[in-house]
């Protein structure tokens, strides 16, 4: 009998706040695939690449603490946000490669009775589906092929760059200059993957408040690229990219001088649709850019 896949789920903050549909659809898909997710209820925010600008050491300690709780459950940590993935994987990478730093962090963790050992792997739910569950097995589970849709994959920076971290966290690293995981997933689910220049580019999320013009241009160009490639909708594994593309189309449209609104689905929602989950299980009503095809 196949071994049941079990992961310690690091939800991150966004799935618990501004993208509730991402958490719902993660659980819906996991259930369909027989994947067990144990939520890391003790986990804190990863700092989203900003806390480390303010206090790098504190960011390391907090991320190491999160990993400790996956370790204590003896599980691989699975993330559902590209930025959580990056910050956690980067912490692991730095601690595993710098004994002195690891000792300094562990000195702090010891104060609350924890120790970072480095025994848990870290992966993103996208790669758990592709690498661990397997696309072949997934294909057998498809009940509603997405054949009538042109789907634009939007990878999001922090899953594909820096590639040295991917080598560590999930075996089959994709090339940031020509990534293929989401494309393969779309094809497996019976959809048509569209190619466009911006698919591996930045959505601008992390500079939204500090550099709104730059951020809006990036968002606008990404939406425009997908529209010009004739996409019916976009799909992303990152809730932050989702938020930027789903909610900021108006500013983005002004920046690029065009109306650039289109549905942006979470990777889990796309998988769920093909597996026969209902729109309400997938939270499809929680989108600002309406998902109007279901």
């Amino acid at each position, binding site marked *: 009998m196949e071994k049941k896949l079990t992961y310690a789920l690091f939800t991150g903050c966004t799935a618990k706040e501004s993208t509730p549909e991402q958490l719902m659809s993660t659980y819906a898909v996991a259930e369909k695939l027989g994947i067990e997710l144990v939520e890391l209820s003790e986990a804190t925010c990863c700092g989203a690449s900003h806390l480390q600008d303010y206090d*790098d050491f504190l960011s390391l300690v907090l991320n190491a603490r999160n990993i400790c709780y996956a370790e204590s459950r003896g599980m691989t940590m699975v993330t559902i946000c590209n930025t959580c993935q990056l910050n956690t994987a980067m912490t692991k990478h730095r601690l595993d490669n710098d004994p002195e730093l690891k000792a300094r962090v562990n000195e702090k963790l010891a104060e609350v009775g924890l120790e970072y050992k480095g025994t848990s792997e870290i992966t993103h739910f996208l790669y758990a589906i592709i690498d661990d569950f397997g696309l072949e097995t997934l294909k057998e589970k498809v009940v509603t092929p997405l054949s009538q849709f042109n789907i634009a994959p939007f990878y999001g920076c922090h899953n594909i760059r820096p590639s040295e971290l991917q080598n560590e966290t999930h075996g089959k690293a994709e090339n940031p200059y020509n990534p293929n995981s989401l494309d393969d997933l779309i094809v497996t689910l019976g959809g048509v993957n569209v190619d466009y220049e911006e698919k591996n580019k930045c959505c*601008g999320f992390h*500079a939204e*408040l500090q550099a709104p013009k730059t951020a809006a241009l990036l968002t606008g160009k990404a939406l425009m690229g997908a529209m010009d490639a004739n996409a019916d909708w976009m799909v992303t594994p990152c809730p932050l990219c989702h938020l930027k593309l789903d909610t900021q189309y108006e500013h983005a449209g002004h920046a690029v001088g065009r109306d650039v609104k289109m549905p942006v689905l979470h990777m889990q929602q796309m998988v769920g649709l093909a597996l026969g989950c209902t729109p309400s299980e997938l939270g499809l*009503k929680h989108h600002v850019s309406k998902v109007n095809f279901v």
Partner: protein
Amino acid sequence: MTTITTQTITFNVFRFNAETDYLPHYKTIEMEVTSEEVVLDILNRIKWDVDGSFSYRRSCRHGICGACAIKVNGKGVLACKERMNDLIELFGTELTLEPLSIKRAVKDMIIDKEDFWKKHEQVKPYLIDEIDEHPESENLVTPKEEAQLLEADYCIQCGLCHYSCPSLENNESYIGPAAFAAAYRFNADVRDKATLDRLDIVNAPDQGVWDCVKCFECQEVCPKEVNPIEKITKLHNQVFENGVAINNVATRHAVGFAHSIKKHGLLDEAELVRYSEGTVPMLMKHGKVGFKMFKVGKVVMPWNMPKSDKLDEVKALIKSSSTVKF
């Protein structure tokens, strides 16, 4: 013994001469490429065998001068280092050769790098100190002190990161990854005395480190593993450590994370925006989008804010592990 193989590759080559052309065009050239070749071999063969007017830069042929940097299918490469086989494996048999920046093209692969050098100059990329003109002994730096440069001094000024940076592409004031790496290199030098001056420059809104969108393109593309975004993070840290952080939306955005985590474990997203922007600007800038998000259930009310388990533990760690104040 390795066997040399050949493949037919279709190259779309960017052609443009600023002196005579109004618009650039792409020329299609088919070539047999051997598994031994690097991109520079192809550029040479285009010039020698196809069209003598084809122009590009190269000098050292050893990956140390940075002159030969171009883009192949959008990927920034040092032509003399990049193996054709790797590119074919990555992109297939149709390859587009372009200069690093199309809008700065002068002739074919040659670009005007003036903006790059200006940005470089802007950060004072030299050692600043009162120098004794007739020293009696060498001014030695220990290996440990040298290690603090984090290999920022390996930069060969090729411009690959600069012309791959989306922040710079969309905002010409942005100083950019290579110049930031240079700023860090001198700030990290124990002999230098101009850290605060450089921090003033890299801390300024619109041009400084706060405009980095954190895409990691610069780390990915750098052929010398300078890792510019790591240096950008270090500059952010130096701004706080040296107490020169300006109280503005960018710095409050970073600090806001610490506040939220202390209170909830998780990030209070709405409160972060309020804390960073201030209540009135927040409503003016984000009110409309916020309302749309609220309508579809994308906003958590303060009284429903989720919290991490074992919050006391988080608070204790923040208290004992914090290294800076704002």
